[in-house]
């Protein structure tokens, strides 16, 4: 018998599966893809480790796009499971228009001749369809079930609020319905609104006032107006869906005039808000810009992850992981796209659940490669 045989027992020198699972919990997700092809027992241990020890977590994806033609784009992802930034290789299509995203992992480009959109985790597949009937700048575009809903946005010719247009991804047809509520007329562009989607509804909140409506693309109905009002003055309301819950992330000031960021769970029926957690002040400080503090925040929510950043200074992103049993983990990450790169570029943030099977599929070809950023 060799020495290894004696030590490791009957496995003949191979490390035990249980130990392997713990080792794999420290291996970045992208490196587990080749590891799963080492042997059958390694493949089993990878799958088991991912479901028992260190599960995949939603990635924050930054699309850095040049502000001028040909809109050269590079993409970076932050994987919170592995605590690292990854540079994703060239996108699958040429982005020859300005990339936009209203929330989550839904990415789109709109021109007068077509609407292109993508909603798979790493935006590999794109659909190109006829544009909505009415030209609009900066609308809300969101995916709700099988529908792509286009709401609001400014127009040079129209004073009235614009009709809502719905593209059905199954029948490939456009449909027009009621305009968005008049109360939102003055803030109809996506800059002033925060949205959240479930499979059935699109929730829209006016960032400043907290005025909230939902829209159901199946019945084409708008809800009555609701106010998100957790008994505290909030200067900036942001919403998102965490698993099935609607949450509100608000920027507010306490009695001593200190800025605070809080997260509430919102009842989807009566819009009652229940505070769940407050951002520790050390992270609030990270969001502050030297000159103007925090004027406005942006929020991306997927699964149990909330990513929060200052709209006018994106150098730090604060992460909140909502763990079961009212437990929360906060940390901050430094934006990998350096400040001086932002002069000729703009950043679009998305947030995606990137699963292991998804990653296997993507990494199978030579086209999609990932490089670890320092």
């Amino acid at each position, binding site marked *: 018998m060799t020495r*290894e045989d004696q030590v490791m027992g009957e496995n003949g020198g191979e*490390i*035990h599966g249980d130990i392997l699972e713990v080792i*794999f919990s420290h*291996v970045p997700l992208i490196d587990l893809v080749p590891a799963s*092809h080492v042997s*059958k*027992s390694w493949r089993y241990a990878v799958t088991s480790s991912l479901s028992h020890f260190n599960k995949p977590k939603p990635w924050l994806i930054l699309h850095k796009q040049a502000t001028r033609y040909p809109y050269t784009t590079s993409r970076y992802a932050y994987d919170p499971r592995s605590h690292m930034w990854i540079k994703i290789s060239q996108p699958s299509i040429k982005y020859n228009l300005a990339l936009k995203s209203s929330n989550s992992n839904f990415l789109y480009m709109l021109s007068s001749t077509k609407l292109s959109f993508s909603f798979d985790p790493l935006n590999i597949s794109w659909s190109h369809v006829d544009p909505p009937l009415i030209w609009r700048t900066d609308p809300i575009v969101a995916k709700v079930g099988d529908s792509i809903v286009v709401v609001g946005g400014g127009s040079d010719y129209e004073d009235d609020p614009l009709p809502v247009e719905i593209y059905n991804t199954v029948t490939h047809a456009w449909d027009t319905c009621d305009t968005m509520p008049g109360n939102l007329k003055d803030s109809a562009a996506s800059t002033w609104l925060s949205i959240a989607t479930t499979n059935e509804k699109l929730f829209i909140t006016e960032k400043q006032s907290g005025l909230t409506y939902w829209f159901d693309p199946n019945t084409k109905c708008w809800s009555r107006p609701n106010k998100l009002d957790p008994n505290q003055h909030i200067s900036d309301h942001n919403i998102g869906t965490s698993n099935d819950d609607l949450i509100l992330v608000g920027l507010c000031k306490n009695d001593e005039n200190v800025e605070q960021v809080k997260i509430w769970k919102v009842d989807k029926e009566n819009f009652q808000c229940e505070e769940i957690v407050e951002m520790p002040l050390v992270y609030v400080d990270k969001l502050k810009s030297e000159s103007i503090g925090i004027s406005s925040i942006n929020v991306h929510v997927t699964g149990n992850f909330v990513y929060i950043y200052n709209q006018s200074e994106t150098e730090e992103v604060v992460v909140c992981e909502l763990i079961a049993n009212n437990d929360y983990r906060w940390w901050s990450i430094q934006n990998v796209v350096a400040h001086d790169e932002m002069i000729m570029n703009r950043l679009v943030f998305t947030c995606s659940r990137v699963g292991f099977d998804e990653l296997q599929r993507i990494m199978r070809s030579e086209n999609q*490669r990932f490089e670890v950023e320092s």
Partner: protein
Amino acid sequence: MSSSTELTEKKVFLLKSLDGVIFEVEESVAVQLEVIRELIEGDCARPFISLYNVTSEILALVIEYCKHHAETCSGGTSATIADEDLKTFDNEFMNVDENILLELCSAADYLDIKSLFELTCRTLASLIKDRTIIEVRKMFNVENDFSVVEEKAVRKEFAWAFK
């Protein structure tokens, strides 16, 4: 270590490796091996403790690790200096051949030494990164048990992971 044990004579225990080598260790070191702590508490640690899964080469390393950690933690230095010292020690301690690392990891698991197990797992994890599938098989002594057809398909689809 509590003050009451310091006053009494230091207890020692004898650990016997797989290949029959006996090591004398102080209690403060022995109790870091969770398995042995339980034996001591159950008064089953005499005349010596046989460790059937650990060779003398590995057991010597394990004892060196536990000894350093026990001394640093009870040395009266400030927590931050102790932390720094342990970090430096751990880094150097992990600078060994991969086969030794694998055995250390298994031994730490068997002897239930949490910090050493965590340390070796992290180190082994870092060795998997940026290596080809062939290199990983060799390093971890893994037998490729995929069928010829399966292996061929993987080599084609994930050609980059073999280069």
